[in-house]
């Protein structure tokens, strides 16, 4: 299990400007809907945006605290 606060902190290590919205998908604290808005995504294809977030969450995915996320990525300009 991982808390939304911890998740946000991990994402901001890779993307310090990230605005992160998280909702718990299953109520079990290991499957989340995660939306990340960051300038760091500019110029990146969707696959690479997601790779960037997954790399930031690597530790939590590997040690099992996090099972899966449904991920949405955006740059601030499309808001």
């Amino acid at each position, binding site marked *: 299990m991982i808390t939304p606060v911890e998740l946000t902190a991990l994402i901001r290590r890779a993307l310090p400007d990230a605005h992160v919205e998280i909702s718990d*998908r299953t109520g079990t604290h290991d499957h989340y809907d995660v939306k990340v808005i960051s300038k760091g995504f500019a110029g990146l294809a*969707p*696959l690479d945006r*997601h790779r960037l977030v*997954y790399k930031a969450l690597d530790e939590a995915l*590997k040690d099992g605290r996090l099972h899966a996320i449904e991920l949405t990525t955006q740059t601030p300009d499309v808001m």
Partner: protein
Amino acid sequence: MNEDLKARIQDEIENHKILVYGKGTKDAPRCGFTMETIAFFNQLGYPFEVVDVLEDMPKRQALSEITDWPTLPKVFINGTFYGDTDILEPMLERGELQPLLESTFKTPAR
């Protein structure tokens, strides 16, 4: 990485126009995300294959290395990696997925 395993995966990818590596089978998915991916492709109406890798850790590891993508399911269309439905759903909404599938199914299997 085990080269033999990698070659077998490459073969699998090239022999299915739509290939989903997931947890569980089409009839009995064992993960909510795999289930969603199956529903997604059922709704699109093109034939697709689901390969269950839940218990096959060496294959999961090899797949993650090939794709640089840590989670399941993993979707390949026409031999190219497309991530999961987080990538494919927006593609469908933007009208990019249908033309890709149409052209994929026009050409004979490699």
